């Protein structure tokens, strides 16, 4: 029954994340990142017959394969053993610079956020960093960040096997081209257009003449999402899983 309901916006996002994770061997996600975790779990489920995708969730007991303390994630990334990671940001700009520290003048920021966490390292060494921020507004997607926690690109002499490949928001998906450097709009989510994205985005970006819509999950994918992925997610993100189930129930009633 649940599987018959059309895709929720979050399910489309999770499906987009799983697509961005094609071919990865090991994904790490932060402690409070249910959507990236769900995307990674969907990737695992999609590839189950052919290969094992490793997923490390910081702070989770069931998905914690580390035994050397909180430094092991960074060591592991430095060794090239982590293929993909997710990064958010209080501000993200058109060069893919991210700011996790604060808005306004540093250090007495007008608005102070927690801090850079591991971004100033992971952004350099993880090959496929996916920028993920649901809020897509000119306040977040700025022309230039006030503080660079981690830069989108580096000069050629800087050791940088890693970096951003995509930016996924609640409105759209962009790819990142480090040679230009800049973002290209890949697709807009249902209900959005090139114009609504332009209005919501503080930086310039490239786009195709005709902007496609972000694909919704097909029936098989939806079945995986609402079955094994949702069940697995329950362990680590019970509140998120509960909301998801509630939204599904509400939508089914509505139909």
């Amino acid at each position: 029954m649940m599987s018959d309901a059309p895709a929720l916006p979050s399910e489309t996002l999770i499906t987009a994340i799983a697509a961005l994770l094609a071919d990865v061997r090991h994904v790490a996600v932060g402690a409070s990142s249910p959507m990236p975790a769900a995307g990674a779990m969907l990737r695992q489920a999609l590839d189950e017959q052919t290969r094992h995708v490793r997923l490390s969730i910081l702070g989770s007991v069931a998905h914690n394969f580390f035994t050397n303390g909180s430094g092991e994630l960074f060591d592991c990334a430095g060794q090239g053993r982590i293929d993909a990671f997710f990064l958010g940001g209080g501000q993200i700009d058109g060069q893919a610079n991210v700011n996790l520290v604060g808005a306004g003048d540093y250090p007495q920021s007008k608005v102070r956020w927690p801090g850079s966490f591991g971004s100033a390292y992971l952004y350099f060494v993880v090959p496929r960093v996916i920028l993920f921020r649901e809020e897509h507004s000119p306040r977040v997607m700025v022309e230039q960040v006030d503080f660079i926690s981690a830069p989108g690109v580096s000069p050629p002499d800087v050791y940088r096997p890693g970096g951003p490949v995509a930016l996924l928001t609640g409105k759209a998906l962009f790819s990142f081209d480090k040679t230009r450097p800049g973002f290209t709009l890949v697709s807009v989510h249902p209900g959005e257009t090139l114009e609504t994205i332009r209005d919501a985005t503080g930086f310039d970006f490239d786009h195709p003449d005709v902007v496609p819509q972000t694909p919704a999950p097909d029936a098989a994918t939806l079945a995986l999402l609402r079955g094994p992925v949702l069940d697995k997610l329950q362990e680590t993100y019970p509140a998120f899983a509960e909301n998801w189930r509630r939204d599904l129930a509400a939508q089914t009633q509505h139909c």
Partner: protein
Amino acid sequence: MLTNVDSLVDRLRDGMRIAVPVDYAGVAMAFTRPMIARGLRDLDLVCVPTGGLQVDQLIGAGCVRSVETSAVSLGEAGGAPRFNAAVKEGRIRVIDATCPAVHAGLIAAQKGSPFFPMRGLIGTDVLRNRPDWKVIDNPFADQGDPVVLIPAIKPDVAIFHAPMADRAGNVWIGRRRELAPMAYAATDTYVTVDRIVDDNLLADETTAAGVLPALYVSGIAHVPQGAWPYGLWGVYPADTDALKRYAAAARTQEGFDAYMAATETRKEVRA
């Protein structure tokens, strides 16, 4: 070796550099109120590698001069209100780091080395605001290859909470191994533990594997649930409601003062 929190807090001094662990790795919350009660001032906190409730409370109570950290937050309960306010008002010096740089500084101290080289960081404002970090050209590269050197972090004191200790002073830290470099790097390490066991933890190879040896431990206090409202990995979860109550109260200095003056200390548990 075995004593109580107050006698350990007696050994702390104004101006000390104190290392504390990340919220899920065993925060010795039982130290916080005695430290505030003692009126400690000008503390330089080092968060390994991020801080939370303990840091926020010590800042709110005026004990802190600087915080070296990769982040301070209350996790699910939101931003750290007293930290954020103090930064905005310039009342503390915040020394922004990134998680692996804090680990790198501790490892340098653990190894008796003056610094540790680290990839990343080039081009960040984190680096630009750290005159204490140096950039050199990697001497092993054929051409220019800038690399950042993080100086050794040597705290005066490391403080954390762990599941158990034995009577010889060995502390079981399990796979929260970041606690070991903290202790190696610090001059003195004070630990609160949920329980004291009679058997020597080093006598059995299975438990020994997760032990921080007494050699690095200067004092231990037995405080059941001493991490509360934080949890203790594998033992009890965080009390998210209590964290949220604090977060709501501490939005203002007055609210914070009132909260701290109130009774939320679980004294009944610690007695």
